[in-house]
Each structure stands twice: as structure tokens, then as C-alpha cells.
């Protein structure tokens, strides 16, 4: 048995495809990306010339970079907070009912498996300045705002709209994780607390919450990374408008600097944005795990 499970050839054979892929498609490109971020790419000769940290200092002076950072951080904070509140609320309420629980759960999770690009087009139409929701508002005599065209304020209205659409689409995921964790809690804990005179709210506050804390960490890191990666919805809802209306996030900024016909092939510059993105991902995961790190309670 021991010998069988220590078979070196088998281990190498089993691990090789995955490790080779990971190294070739992930590790080497990331390293290359770091190198590119220190280079200037010449489109004509297709050559990279080492320029040190110039890309980064250029980035720091670029107003669009700061707008993207601001918007990305807004999405990060908004999605972490809103998904925690609504995901937990839905999960807590759903575990209280029996009939129809699966139906509700599956319905709320459904948009998670649908294409953000396609759903984004739908929502872009709903929040169109002239048609969509504004027709309904006009029907009751309210002049609706320009939704996706309104660029006033520190966090512009389109960002709020997209943040809510993202919440609509992805809250099911957090809800699922919390539900799984809540239904794993031993029922006798609740019975004991009710005997001691605790109300349902109190039981939620003093039993459910502390016991699902590790899952809050997991769900929140998933949210954080997901919101930093945010691209599909923004691209399909705003399209090329992102540039003019200052509604970039890091992902769209990177895409535009690297590949869009207008932005041109600034591979070095785009790689620098990629490096910032990786750094933000790692930092946010680290911070969230630090905050929610708890010793596992026996359940």
C-alpha cells in the first residue's frame, strides 16, 4: 500500500501535464510580464528596449490611471460590503424556510452561470438614457437621470449602476457559500441558546456570525479578486465610452492600452498596469485573510 502510493513514476506522470501547463502558461508569462513592464515596446521593429521604471512613473502621472484605480477600488469595496450584507441576509433567511428553499436558491444563483457580456448588453438597454427604465419613469412624470451617461460626482453614476448590476449577478455565489456554512452548524447549539432565552436575532449574532467567520474570509477574497478582474460587464455596458467619460477600471485600461485600435500596442505600459493589478489582488487577499483569520471552531 505504502509502496504503491509512493510510486515516483506515477506521481511524476500524474503531475507533469498540470505543472508544465502552469509553468508555461502562468509562471513564465507572469515573469515576462514583470520584465515587459520595465520595457518599451516598439511596434515597428517589435523590439523591447529596457527603460527601467519609466512605465511606472508615467503611470503615476497618468490621470486615467488614477481614475481606474479609484473605480477599481470602489468596485472592490462595494462588492465586498454589499455581497457580505446581502449574501449573508439571503442565506440567513433562506435557511429559515424549508418549502421552496432550493427553488429560491437556484434562481438567485442563476445569473452567475450566464454570460456577463450578454447580460451587460441587456442592462445597458435597461439603463439607456432615452428608452428602458426612463420610459417607465417618464410614465409617472419623473425625468430619469442619464444613467450610463452621467459623469458628475466623485464616483460617477455609471459606476454605481454597474456595481448594482454586478451585485445582482453575483450575490448568489456569496449566498451559496454562506448557506453551506450555516447549514453545517450543529442544531443543538441553537437549541441550547433558545433554552437559555436567546432570541433568533441574538442567536444569529452570537452563534451564526462567529461560526461562519472563516467563510466570510473566503467569500470576500473571491469577491475582491472578482471585482478587480471586472471586465466583461463594463466592456459590454459601456463599450468604447469608457475613455471619453472617464469610466475606466484597471482591466479596461489595460485592455485599451494594449490592444484597442485607438490606444495602440503599448505592451510595456499595459504590462505595468498588469503588475499593479497582480499587486492589488495579492494585497487584498492578504489583508482579507489577515482580518478574518480565526482558529476553526469545532462544529
Amino acid at each position, binding site marked *: 500500500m505504502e509502496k504503491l502510493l509512493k510510486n515516483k513514476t506515477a506521481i511524476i506522470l500524474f503531475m507533469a501535464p498540470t505543472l508544465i501547463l502552469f509553468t508555461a502558461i502562468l509562471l513564465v508569462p507572469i515573469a515576462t510580464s514583470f520584465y515587459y513592464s520595465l520595457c518599451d515596446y516598439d511596434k515597428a521593429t517589435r523590439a523591447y528596449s529596457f527603460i527601467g521604471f519609466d512605465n511606472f512613473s508615467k503611470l503615476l502621472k497618468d490621470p486615467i490611471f488614477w481614475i481606474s484605480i479609484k473605480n477599481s477600488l470602489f468596485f472592490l469595496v462595494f462588492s465586498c460590503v454589499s455581497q457580505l450584507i446581502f449574501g449573508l441576509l439571503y442565506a440567513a433567511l433562506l435557511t429559515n424556510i424549508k418549502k421552496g428553499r432550493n427553488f*429560491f436558491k437556484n434562481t438567485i444563483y442563476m445569473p452567475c452561470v450566464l454570460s456577463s457580456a450578454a447580460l451587460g448588453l441587456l442592462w445597458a438597454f435597461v439603463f439607456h438614457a432615452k428608452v428602458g427604465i426612463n420610459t417607465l419613469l417618464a410614465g409617472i412624470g419623473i425625468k430619469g437621470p442619464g444613467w450610463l451617461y452621467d459623469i458628475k460626482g466623485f464616483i460617477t453614476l455609471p459606476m454605481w449602476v454597474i456595481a448594482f448590476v454586478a451585485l445582482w449577478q453575483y450575490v448568489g455565489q456569496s449566498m451559496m457559500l454562506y448557506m453551506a456554512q450555516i447549514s453545517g452548524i450543529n442544531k443543538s447549539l441553537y437549541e441550547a441558546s433558545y433554552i437559555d432565552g436567546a432570541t433568533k436575532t441574538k442567536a444569529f449574532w452570537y452563534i451564526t456570525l462567529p461560526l461562519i467567520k472563516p467563510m466570510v474570509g473566503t467569500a470576500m477574497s473571491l469577491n475582491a479578486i472578482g471585482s478587480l*478582474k471586472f471586465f466583461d460587464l463594463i466592456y459590454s455596458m459601456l463599450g468604447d465610452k469608457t475613455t471619453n467619460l472617464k469610466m475606466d477600471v484597471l482591466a479596461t485600461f489595460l485592455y485599451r492600452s494594449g490592444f484597442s485600435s485607438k490606444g495602440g500596442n503599448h505592451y510595456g505600459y499595459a504590462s505595468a498596469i498588469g503588475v499593479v493589478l497582480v499587486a492589488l489582488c495579492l494585497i487584498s487577499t492578504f489583508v482579507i485573510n489577515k482580518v478574518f483569520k480565526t482558529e476553526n471552531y469545532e462544529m
Partner: protein
Amino acid sequence: MTAVTAKAKIKESKPKVKTSTVLIYILFAILVVLYIAPIVWIGITSLKTRPEIYKDPFGLPTVLQWENYSFAWNAGKLGTAMLNSLFVCVVTLFFTMMFGSMSAFAIGRMKWKLSGAAMMYILIGMMIPVHCVLIPLFVRFAGVGLDNNLWGLILPYLTFSLPTCVYIMTGFFRNIPNELLESACIDGCSIYRTFGSICLPLSRTGLFVTGLMTFIGNWNELLLAMVFIHDDTRKTLPVAVTKFVSPYQTNYEKMFPAILIAIIPSIIVYSLFSNQIVDGLTQGAVKG
């Protein structure tokens, strides 16, 4: 408070629970409308004429415009796009399950010093956004003729699908009782047969779930598909759908059928297997 009065209190509180339950049901009924209405609405709008869409976006069509679908299908080359998507997703699915379960077995069941490190290495893939490797991959692939090629999409899709697969499958393999493996060993089963004929069939649920998740995730992927493929005949479905929107004019009467065509496969798969997807997914996450 004595146990007796507490019990009495629990009994008393039963009718109270009912009002709150009703409130919960009302809340979730509203939510269900919020989630299903947009999709029904896409269906209704996709059958309207353009003036109808502009004049009364939330009304019903007077005459059902079924030809919108054929227009969208032809104009967007949605048939080709769907075949492309299908090809990419099925190939990715096959290799993800194969490589993923192999590594998961080695990490979860076999005994070697670096198994923990290998798991860490693979899990890092979950944290890295695909954007960061976009440019190096694009440059590299252009050099070896993998750009504008569906295989150039399959490789990164495969790599980014593997961490979840390994993660979930490791959990399933670890749950297989030791006795089973021991008896297989006593009967002279080789490690490859133990993996292929005993452990894999026992982890069917896990394979099924990871398969569905991999398929759905790649079916919806937009960024890589947009960057890597520039030939219209090789575009995948999400990219083909976004083409209906241009800065100057949007063909809504074509866009809505296209949206529906793009999401209908996912909706069908999801409604058939939603319980398995949802349960399996959480199982993987909770076990970690």
C-alpha cells in the same frame, strides 16, 4: 429560566414564526421576479420590431417577429460562433478533467514530500487574474502561430480551469475510504488502475460538477477570446454577441435575439443540473 418554561416559550413562539416566514416568502418572491423578469423580458423584446422597442420597451409585441432570430443568427454569424465556442469548451473540458483529476489524485492520495507545495503552486492560479498574462501570452502565441487560433484559446482556458478542478477533486479523492485502496492493493491492482478503475468512478459527482463549472466558465469568457481571435469565422459566442453594439448605432432588434441565443444553452444546462452545480460547488469551497 427552567427548561420547562423554555420549552413552553418555544411552543408559544411558533405562531410568531409564521408571520416572519410569510415576510421571508414575500421578500424572496420579489427577488425571484427581479431575477426572472429580465430574462423573460429579453424573450419578449426579441420578438418586437425596432419602432416598438423604442416606443414601448416594456410592452408586448403586436406581431411576433420571428425573423429577428434568423437575422441575428446570420448577421452575427452566431452559428459559427456557437460551434467555435462548443469546440473550445469541449476540448478544454476534456483535458481539464483528465489533467486535473490526475494531479488531484497525486496530491490528495499519494505520498510525496512536495505535495503541499504543488497544491500551493496550483492554487496561486486561482488568485492571478488572466489580465496579467494577457500580453506575454499574446506576444508568445503570435510568435508560434497560436494567435487567431482556437488552440491558442484552449491552452490558457485549460490552465485557468485547472486550479478549481484540482481543488474540488482533491477533496473528493481524500474522502475515499482507505480500506478500498488497501483491498485494491492486496488484490494486486497497479496505481494506474487504482486511479482509473476505483477512484475516478467513485468521484463521479466531483467530475460532473467540475466539468459543468469549467464548461460554463469558458463558455462565457470574453477578454481572452476578444484579444486572441480576430478572424470573424473563429470568434466565440460572447465576442460575437458584443459585436451587435457599436458606438454609433445599436441594432436592438438583432441584439436581443443574440443575447437570448447566447444565454439559452447555459440556462438549459443550469436548470437541468442546478442542484448538482450548486451543491458540488459549495462542497469544494467548504472543504478547503
